[in-house]
């Protein structure tokens, strides 16, 4: 295994993770809700959901984060590796998969594991496995 020491950012990643943990904690302690982004988005797309304003305001906060960040310092690097067809297929799979799987990296990976939910631990293992496998297949087998 080759570790990419040049791009390894342990401290900012730990600190960013801690902020994510603070945000997820605030949302559950104050609002009694799970900070799962796919769940929040999906429920706003469904008719008759409760708590629409709180869910929408959480997403609004997430949406304006780069604007608030930009008030203080330059945005971090954001670099894409897919064209429009890859992005479309990826987006569809992420949309359908997170709804059938009842969650994504935030809802299962952070909140679910933090409350030791067996479903979330299994879901996280599944999407990590297929994420690793997909990158392996694309980069090292098909060499796209």
């Amino acid at each position: 295994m080759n570790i990419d020491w040049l791009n390894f950012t342990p401290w900012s990643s730990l600190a960013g993770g801690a902020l994510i943990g603070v945000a997820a904690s605030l949302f559950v302690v104050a609002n009694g809700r799970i900070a799962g982004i796919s769940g929040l988005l999906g429920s706003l797309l469904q008719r008759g959901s409760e708590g629409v304003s709180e869910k929408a305001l959480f997403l609004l906060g997430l949406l304006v984060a780069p604007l608030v960040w930009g008030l203080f310092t330059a945005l971090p690097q954001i670099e894409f590796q897919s064209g429009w067809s890859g992005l479309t297929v990826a987006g569809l799979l992420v949309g359908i998969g997170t709804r059938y799987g009842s969650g994504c990296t935030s809802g299962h990976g952070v909140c679910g594991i933090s409350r030791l939910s067996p479903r979330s631990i299994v879901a996280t293992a599944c999407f990590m496995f297929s994420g690793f496998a997909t990158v392996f297949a694309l980069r090292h087998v098909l060499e796209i």
Partner: protein
Amino acid sequence: MLKLTAFMAGLVFGLGLLLAGMANPSKVLAFLDVSGTWDPSLALVMLGAIAVAIGPLTWARRQTRSILGNPMQLPLKRELDPRLIGGSLLFGIGWGIAGICPGPAVAILLTGHWQVIVFVLAMLAGMLLFTALENRRTH
């Protein structure tokens, strides 16, 4: 107050994603590329997040209401069904293709990159498709 805490939670979540490097699809893909030159940073994002959230979420499991009086809404399902596993596997494939998951997708939507707009439109279409299929199943 509930609205303010919801907005603040979303904002801090987004700032955390940006600081952590999760909002950079190339970095996410470098994390998922274990057999290439592997960037393990994102494992630390999850570690940092869980280390902070595990206390408050454990507390929340024992409550019926939040401190601001909302009902505590934690998922109650326990079964490990094919939908959970199949859905999560599909999600991982999509994540591995583009290196974008739902949180970062929203958090970088306003940064002016066309790629994230295409991704988010497709993701919302996927979610609407799920809702349509579910409605057909239950009616």
